[in-house]
């Protein structure tokens, strides 16, 4: 009875999610008269079932995290299929790769306490990887943060995010200031040289928040905030494109045909969706520049409406809540900081892009985790979830050990 009771919330959630995507893909498949739509109507629910119920039997994954992550990933595939089916197929492939990488990350976290020397390898390798775009990279949308090898493109800063979280967690848990300060400053410097200011903001914010979580040192943390504000002011004074972004944020309609076009189109799409949306497959989401990546949330609002968009935001909240709970239940400092760092990074990334799309803060070029088109982004987000799940698997193992010891104690003869 207790086993059935503990699985009931998960079963019902999975059924509703599978029903949602089956209906949505069937509708789109019927509209496009495309066989791929019908395949996805079967494949995506099957993928959700496997991810939520089969994988946890084979690997130490957390069902709730898998459910929430699968929902967001499948939602990304749905929106991309609606706008550009080729993107949807690539996203599905990236999801498969990301799942495999996630499982590797789970086992990596479980083995980490025995291989601490690897952190120095990660430290050096990450800085080398992050330097590659400066040497081999190509500039896209004003930032030189991509490297292309044949038909394969990679954004190293997305992968170095994982190293950042690992390094911060490791050195903060050892109470060693210098290594993580050096690593963070080096990463920020390289990102500024690449003009990838959005990712630099993410790195800085995650470092600061994790430092505060690890030490509780409010004066230094506030000093860090002041430093960030100072750096932002300096960036505003020094870089023209920063001034442009701020002016667009303040009044996008002043130059809506050129610089403010993207933001205006996004806001129009959100407004035209209203509470319930214009309907899946209707509307004109492709009129928004970079709709598949930065402005995927505007597409979501247009198609499904603000009520559904609020539900998606709440899913992100649930994901962050779960991650934070897992971090606070960790027995060891390193594991707690690792889970907290991964959670903070995902939450901060979601906040930065959603804030930009909704005109709460100036727009930055980061992706919405799990939903935006982009193999590097999806794989790195799934790897971060892998870190959180790795820590949760250790928490469960510790709890079971405590139960075993207590049962042994009760079983001892008087």
């Amino acid at each position, binding site marked *: 009875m207790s086993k059935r009771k*503990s699985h009931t919330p998960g079963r019902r959630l999975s059924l509703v999610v599978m029903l949602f995507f089956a209906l949505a893909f069937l509708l789109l498949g019927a509209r496009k008269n495309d066989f791929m739509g019908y395949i996805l109507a079967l494949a995506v629910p099957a993928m959700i079932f496997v991810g939520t119920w089969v994988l946890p039997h084979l690997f130490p994954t957390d069902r709730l995290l898998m459910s929430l992550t699968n929902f967001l990933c499948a939602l990304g595939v749905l929106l991309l299929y609606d706008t550009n089916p080729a993107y949807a197929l690539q996203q599905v492939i990236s999801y498969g790769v990301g799942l495999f990488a996630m499982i590797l990350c789970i086992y990596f976290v479980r083995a980490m306490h025995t291989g601490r020397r690897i952190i120095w390898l990660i430290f050096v390798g990450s800085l080398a990887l992050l330097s590659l775009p400066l040497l081999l990279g190509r500039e896209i949308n004003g930032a030189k943060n991509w490297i292309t090898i044949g038909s394969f493109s990679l954004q190293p800063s997305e992968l170095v995010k994982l190293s950042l979280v690992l390094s911060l967690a490791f050195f903060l848990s050892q109470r060693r200031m210098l290594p993580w300060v050096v690593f963070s400053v080096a990463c920020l410097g390289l990102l500024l040289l690449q003009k990838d200011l959005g990712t630099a903001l993410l790195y800085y914010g995650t470092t600061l928040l994790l430092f505060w979580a690890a030490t509780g040192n409010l004066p230094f943390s506030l000093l860090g905030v002041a430093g960030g504000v100072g750096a932002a002011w300096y960036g505003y004074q020094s870089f023209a494109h920063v001034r442009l972004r701020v002016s667009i944020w303040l009044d996008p309609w002043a130059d809506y045909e050129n610089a403010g076009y993207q933001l205006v189109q996004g806001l129009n799409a959100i407004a035209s969706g209203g509470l319930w949306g214009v309907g899946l497959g209707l509307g004109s989401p492709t009129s928004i520049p970079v709709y598949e990546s930065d402005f995927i949330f505007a597409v979501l609002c247009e198609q499904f409406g603000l009520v559904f968009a609020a539900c998606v935001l709440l899913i992100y909240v649930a994901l962050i809540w779960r991650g934070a709970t897992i971090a606070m239940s960790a027995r060891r*400092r390193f594991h707690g900081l690792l889970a907290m760092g991964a959670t903070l990074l995902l939450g901060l990334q979601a906040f930065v892009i959603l804030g930009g799309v909704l005109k709460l803060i100036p727009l930055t070029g980061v992706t919405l985790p799990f939903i935006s088109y982009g193999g590097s982004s999806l794989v790195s987000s799934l790897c971060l979830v892998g870190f959180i799940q790795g820590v949760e698997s250790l928490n469960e193992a510790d709890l079971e050990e405590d139960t075993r010891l207590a049962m042994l104690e009760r079983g001892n003869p008087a």
Partner: protein
Amino acid sequence: MSEELYEVLSLSSRYLFTLLGVLIVLRAFFWLLSDRAEKRRRLKKLPFSGMIGEFVVLADGGDLHAGDHISIPWEGVLGSVRSCDVYVPGQEVRRQHLSFAFDPDQGLVLSPFRGCEALVNGESMNHRSLSLRHGSLLQVGNVLMRLRLFAGLDANAGFDAAPSAVTTQFPPAVSPAEYPPMYPPFPAQEVPAPAAIMPAFPAEIAGPAAPVFPQEGGPVLSPAPKVPSEPSTVPDSADTVTQRPPARRRRSDRWEVDWSE
């Protein structure tokens, strides 16, 4: 499918999709909260979950009294502020005095912070890391404590050792007048085996116990203290050393290991 038909279907289904979205959110939060409640129920049955043992205060010091128990997590910081993992509000105890981490092979490894000092079994740490085993003494500031590891976490026997159903007896509490506030620095001595530290149950119990803590210039620990008579907890003879004490047990007595064997 014609455009008109699709438009009707799509416009009708948007309410269904919104409803499903709301259901998904409600189910997700319900699962989150029920999982949390389940975990709390499990932890209620394991009051010492996450802890590896406890420090037993042997003498009054600071705001602590003899007999106080301080639970020890797997790793953390010991200091005189409440945010520390092990809170020791004693005199000359710094806000963050030392860090500790449990290792199944080495025991409780202590690392003092800069400028902080402590004594382990009477030996000064001298700004280096030292390990505590079950029964070891630790003095931080004017607080003297003994480490008690929970059963199954016996550092000598390995992590998977099954607990044995025996109790330990610590030397009785000593009043501050019988020992100086801070031990003088003793020359480094070989730490006696736990069996020498922990007294065997005496065949006879007579009179009040003599203090067992180091006097100036004296040995680190007296090997055979006399234990005061406590009929409810002290066995009558050495033959009954493996029996559980029959009387009321404190919560912290549940997991204990006899090191005298």
